[in-house]
């Protein structure tokens, strides 16, 4: 017989453990809940199913790329080339699909796009681990190179998608949009990778301390390469998803124009509790960060806030999120 008191104390100790081990995670999901509640109560337009689906569709685009960004940050880096990668994949995909639209061609195109992404990730890793350029600068430089290729290929929006390709963004599985299922599968996969595979654990270990990881016999260059390849891979997924959603390509679809996926994905990752500088964090937190960013975007739009002011607010959020963690870390150290 378990008394109620004992059950309660057990519950309490579990809750305490959850709180002490996953403080960031609990906090961010709580904030997310509060924000949804506010939206539901304050803005009637927010709770319409149409709008909610819209939030989710936006969240998927950001969510896919943020999964990879999580790994890039976790390994001790940052990937600022994802925006241009998204644009590149977007214009190439729509450019090719405008000419080759058979199902076989679509498969080939997708495979080719993923191959391109993996090469981009490898290039980032090469510049970082072999040429010893700080990840921030390395990926910014690689991103600029990619953007150049994008604009060489397409100067304005254009291209087309193959018939049926819109299923990626618009399709439904029962009552649930297919992209939502797709994102959740990717989150689960990334979670599993980080928690259960040797390579995944080595990502966090390398981010925790490259030196210690290396002294423990981990091949840290290879691990860094995995992380940046996965980051580019998920950026490609976002690129593919956006082509499906927009039905066309746009040389600025990954950045500059409306959504800045570089900044937004880093914001989502950091809001999700992954430590800038690496070693700690995960995709479950990032998912919350993604939803938070998408929700904020949506609420701002519904409330009619000037997009430039939105930028200011987003910048403030990134800086404060990092500052809060930094201050807390300092507190722990002394």
């Amino acid at each position, binding site marked *: 017989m378990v008394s109620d008191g004992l059950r309660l104390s057990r519950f309490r100790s579990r809750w305490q453990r959850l709180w002490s081990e996953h403080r960031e995670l609990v906090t961010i999901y709580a904030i997310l809940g509060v924000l949804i509640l506010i939206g539901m109560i304050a803005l009637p337009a927010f709770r319409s199913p149409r709008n909610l689906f819209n939030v989710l569709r936006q969240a998927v685009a950001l969510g896919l790329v943020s999964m990879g960004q999580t790994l890039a940050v976790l390994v001790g880096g940052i990937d600022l080339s994802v925006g241009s990668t998204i644009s590149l994949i977007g214009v190439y995909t729509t450019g090719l699909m405008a000419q080759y639209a058979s199902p076989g061609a679509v498969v080939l195109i997708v495979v080719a796009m993923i191959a391109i992404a993996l090469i981009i990730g490898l290039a980032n890793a090469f510049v970082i681990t072999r040429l010893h350029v700080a990840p921030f600068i390395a990926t910014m430089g690689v991103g600029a190179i990619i953007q150049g290729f994008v604009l060489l290929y397409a100067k304005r929006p254009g291209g087309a998608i193959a018939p049926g390709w819109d299923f990626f963004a618009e399709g439904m599985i029962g009552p649930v949009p297919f992209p939502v299922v797709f994102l959740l599968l990717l989150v689960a996969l990334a979670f599993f990778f980080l928690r*259960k595979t040797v390579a995944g*654990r080595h990502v966090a270990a390398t981010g925790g301390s490259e030196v210690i*990881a290396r002294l423990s016999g981990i091949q840290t260059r290879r691990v860094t390469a995995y992380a940046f390849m996965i980051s580019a891979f998920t950026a490609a997924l976002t690129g593919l998803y956006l082509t499906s959603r927009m039905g066309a390509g746009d040389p600025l679809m990954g950045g500059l124009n409306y959504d800045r996926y570089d900044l937004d994905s880093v914001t989502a990752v950091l809001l999700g509790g992954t430590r800038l500088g690496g070693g700690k964090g995960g995709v479950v937190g990032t998912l919350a960060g993604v939803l938070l960013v998408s929700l904020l975007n949506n609420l701002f739009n519904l409330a009619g806030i000037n997009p430039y002011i939105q930028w200011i607010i987003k910048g403030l959020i990134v800086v404060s999120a990092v500052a809060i963690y930094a201050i807390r870390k300092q507190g722990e150290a002394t």
Partner: protein
Amino acid sequence: MRKPGQLVGRGVIPSADKGKALPSVKAEMSVAQSLVEMRNITMTFPGVTALDDVSFESRPGEVHAVVGENGAGKSTLMKILAGVYQPDRGEILLGGQPVRISSPHEAQRLGISIIYQELNLLPDLTVAENVFLGREPRRALGLIDDRTLEDGAREVLNRLGVDIDPRMRLGRLSVAQQQMVEIAKALSLNAQIVIMDEPSASLGGRDLERLFDVIAALKKNNVAVIYISHRLAEVFQVADRVTVFKDGKVVGTQAVSDIDRPSLVRMMIGRTLSETFPPRGKRVGEEILRVEGLCCGEKLTAVSLTVHRGEIVGIAGLVGSGRTELAQAIFGARRTDGGVVRIKGRKVSIESPRHGLQHKLGFLTEDRNLEGLVMGLSVRENAALPSLKGRQRFGFVDRKAEDKVVGGMAESLRIRAPSLSQEVEYLSGGTRQKVVLAKWLISGPELLIFDEPTRGIDVGAKAEIWQLMRDLADQGKAILMISSELPEIVGISDRILVMHRGSMVGELPSEAATEEKVMMLATYGESHGE
């Protein structure tokens, strides 16, 4: 336990009479028996020869202690054995076969494991993940076998006799517990050769005994243990043989049973450098600094001291004994949790380096390249940095005033730079130290703290720095000097304070101080007769 007569553990350790075998027999055995042999190893870093033609061997079932001053080359040799560094010359034989240890990974594969001096653990991983980091038990598809991981960690922790939950996040453990995890990590490799680089630095009492039990068990299993320690009592307690390093060379190897404490200390310090120290000062004036019962976590325990005008007070002690922490606490760069600091008799609270400056303290840190100078800035800019305030006009730096002050200082300190606009990164170590000194002197301090004032400086420049320190004292400054170099401590201090594990364990007036006495205090924490 520390008395030399009762030294120690001989009855505890199983093969106690091993060391009593006849020397000739042993010499033959060593040829046949050595498990690892390093021959004629030479290793240079830019500007320093860390190891100069060093040979070293270690046998199965034997604890081979390695001792020597800081920078003698012990850790470098061990890092070569662990695959961290590649030697410039020399060869390594393992079981008689030449091997190349190209990486830490390769060392592990060859059955060599090392416990590094500094902790090599990740605070965000669990204990078990740390123990098996880089060698996680796998199932198919690169998946981690968490069950085996935890069981394996638990098993090796049990072997150590410590009660630590392997699922605990490492960062939540105490430093001593983390040290035990580090040891567990090395043991889990089941290596034939276990190197311990000052494993006891953060261990005390029961944990230390457990460590010694583990070493005894390793011996019984025919593992070759290499044990680096500063604490000589431990060497006599656990080791069979001891090798002494000095200045990148091996002074000698002795069976522990053939050597006594004083002769080991003599081997460690007996140097023949003809170093010229300035004559002692005569005038000791008023008290500038008085510290009473200063505490700082585990680093400092009730430390008290005084420094007077015109006096150089040397603080000796091993690395990790709390010397630097003491200096930081006095200067305001480290939070304290108890004790009183008085300056000229007045109680003050110095909570930041800024306060330290206001109370006319100057702190020349150990690492002047990182903490003392801004490499890309010129001599003038560096020297004027902390005292900019007095030389501003409407918020702009008054270059003329700056030139005048720094120029005068550069002259009196004999700073040899082509010009004051020279960037400091192109200056020699000795000149850099003078720039740091100039920087502090311009702010007009009454007490100067020097942390390792001559580290990395060549011999000629050392003498010059010492002379400068003496001149400053004669001009009425109070000087507190931290140094690991015994000749320096004994050579220029008017009074010597010795620290051991965060406490002040002795004070020697300069007339009575010898390197031996200081070393004894620093390594044992108490003096023995003499």
